[in-house]
């Protein structure tokens, strides 16, 4: 099963809509609730990252019998220092993002904790592509 969702830049009024739809799909497939929570936490953090930090992007969801793969691909501007971005508490979020309750510097660390396999391509001035895999 393949689903695609477009994520806008800076529009927090729609933050979580893609994650919410993916959650509904996973529930229908009778995946255990704890596993769904782990998957959705990672997807939601990534979705919020696209809105907060990028020029917009897409979430691609591929569900197979034994695994779920989520690709989150934005259109830039790329992460300058990925090691720092993976550090708990480190954030480049603007005040506007913080007022929304985000920007605690826990996004990528939470994603890493939640998924079984994580690949990140990013480069300053280029885009960011996150691939998350979850065993079922």
């Amino acid at each position, binding site marked *: 099963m393949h689903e695609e969702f477009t994520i806008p830049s800076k529009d*927090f009024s729609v933050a979580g809509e893609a994650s919410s739809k993916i959650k509904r799909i996973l529930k229908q497939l009778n995946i255990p609730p704890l596993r769904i929570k782990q998957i959705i936490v990672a997807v939601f953090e990534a979705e919020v990252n696209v809105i907060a930090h990028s020029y917009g992007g897409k979430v691609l969801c591929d569900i197979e019998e034994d695994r779920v793969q989520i690709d989150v691909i934005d259109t830039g501007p790329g992460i300058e220092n990925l090691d720092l971005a993976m550090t708990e508490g480190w954030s480049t979020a603007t005040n506007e993002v913080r007022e929304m309750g985000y920007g605690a*510097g826990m996004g990528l660390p939470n994603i890493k904790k939640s998924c079984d396999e994580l690949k990140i391509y990013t480069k300053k001035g280029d885009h960011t592509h996150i691939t998350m895999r979850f065993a079922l």
Partner: protein
Amino acid sequence: MLYGRAEHCAILPTMKLKEILECVDGKLIWGESHLEDEVKRGFASDLMSDVLTILEDDIILITGLSNNQSIRTAEMSDISNILLVRNKRPSQSMIDMAKELDISLSYTPYSLFKASGLLFAKGLKPVY
């Protein structure tokens, strides 16, 4: 003198939402069907990424963040009850979203610190 761990001081293993609201002089805005919910733990934060680290069930989220993001985050973390502090009233769009997702919304006049302290003293367990 040997002091017991906090766990041993618990008066109640769980609290019903209606007992939580009595404890903090809270008012329910929406979600009467949740008043009998057995809440096992409380978590107080305005940082939604902190909330997203919780994998336990039957939590009440106590927060000063009165916007749609607190409802969305509760949805992702399977949290069914939200308590807003400092008399923060939710917007209509927050209430609509809470209804759609079946999440109760309440508010208390107390601060995040006082509301959490009262509930902790009453025996509501923390997450961490």
